[in-house]
């Protein structure tokens, strides 16, 4: 193979590190090599916690308990009355959700209504699956009744709050009326008339609000009654049975 001109090659070869550059670079390289060789991994100041066997055992048991409880709670979500996990659903999972999500009386009423709907759905599912024997029927009836009473009570609390709002809204008007009484009779009559109109307006808005929550309550209760009737769980039915039983007895 031919070669490029010698001069060309020599010129290119003349490009090199100077002696001082070579020595400095060698020293720097050696220092970095040794620095890298002696380098230890950065140790976290908290590492001793993780190396302690007691702490490790604690973490491990906590993880086991958390994963166990969360998986049990998850499995319990679909449980129905009579299932082993049903008490976990009603006595653990639901109270926890209540504790976390509910903060005002209105939210409480809404939550209890939702739980009531849940109880009714459970009863329907049991009925569809033909799993409702006499004992389970009694159990379901009790829990539906209890939940229904709870929901009614919470809704009543919200309504009472509305009444308080009404009183507070009405009170300043009454006070201002008594102040007006010290002014001229004509002005007094005018003021009282205005106050009456304002009072009427406030009362109307409160009534509207109360009407809304009443309607919500009635809707749930209607559903409640319908489901109970459908499932043959209602008081009336029970009473009717008792009545016909006693009539029969009397007939005999």
């Amino acid at each position, binding site marked *: *193979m*031919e*070669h*490029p*001109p010698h*001069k*060309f*090659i020599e*010129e*290119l*070869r*003349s*490009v*090199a*590190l100077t002696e001082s*550059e*070579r020595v400095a*670079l*060698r020293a*720097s*390289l*050696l220092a*970095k*090599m040794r620095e*890298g*060789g002696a380098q230890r991994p950065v140790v976290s100041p908290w590492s001793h916690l993780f190396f302690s066997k007691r702490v490790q055992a604690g973490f491990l048991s906590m993880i086991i308990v958390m994963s166990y409880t969360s998986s049990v709670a998850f499995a319990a979500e679909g449980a129905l009355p009579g299932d082993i996990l049903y008490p976990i659903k009603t006595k653990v999972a639901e109270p926890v959700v209540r504790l976390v999500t509910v903060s005002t009386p209105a939210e409480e009423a809404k939550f209890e209504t939702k739980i009531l709907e849940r109880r009714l759905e459970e009863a329907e599912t049991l009925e569809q699956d033909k799993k409702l024997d006499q004992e389970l029927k009694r159990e379901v009836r009790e829990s539906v009744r209890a939940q229904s009473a709870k929901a009614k009570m919470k809704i009543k609390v919200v309504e009472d709050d509305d009444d308080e709002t009404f009183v507070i809204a009405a009170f300043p008007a009454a006070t201002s009326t008594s102040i007006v009484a010290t002014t001229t009779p004509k002005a007094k009559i005018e003021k009282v008339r205005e106050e009456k109109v304002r009072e009427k307006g406030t009362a109307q808005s409160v009534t509207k609000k109360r009407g809304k929550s009443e309607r919500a309550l009635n809707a749930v209760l209607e559903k409640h009654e319908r489901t109970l009737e459908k499932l043959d769980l209602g008081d009336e039915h029970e009473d009717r049975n008792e009545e016909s039983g006693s009539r029969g007895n009397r007939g005999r």
Partner: protein
Amino acid sequence: MKDNSLEMELLRAYDAHADAIFRHCYFKTGERELAQDMTQDVFLKAWSYMQQKQQILNMRAFLYRLADNLVIDWYRKRKATSLDALVDDGFEPVSAESRAEERAEASLALAKLRELGEDDQKLITWRFVEDLSPKEIAEIVDQSENVVSVRLHRALKKLKSLLQ
């Protein structure tokens, strides 16, 4: 003890090939300080490779390969960063003084070498300036010796026409 022998091996490689690696980086980048940094990085990478108990069969070819990869990375980064962005970040283009220095250093030969394409420039330098055999070059560029020989022949022809 083993670390010491590895250290000695690398320092021997440095003494033998530092200039060649520096030249390779300098021909590509045209910046003396950058070429020095790259030279150091090449040997540090080789050191880290040796420490992982990896066997290096041909140290010279291995060092050139590392250097070539570093240069390619540098090209990519340089392309990705526009000059405007660099100036915004406070980068000052090379001063007139350092340009003059570079001009003095960049001989006619270097200017002609840079007129060759990327690959031809590498082949000519490795074969005729660094005295690598076609077999060693083939190892670096991961091609057959025959292909390297053919490409070398063409590159040399091109260089000759440039030098006329």
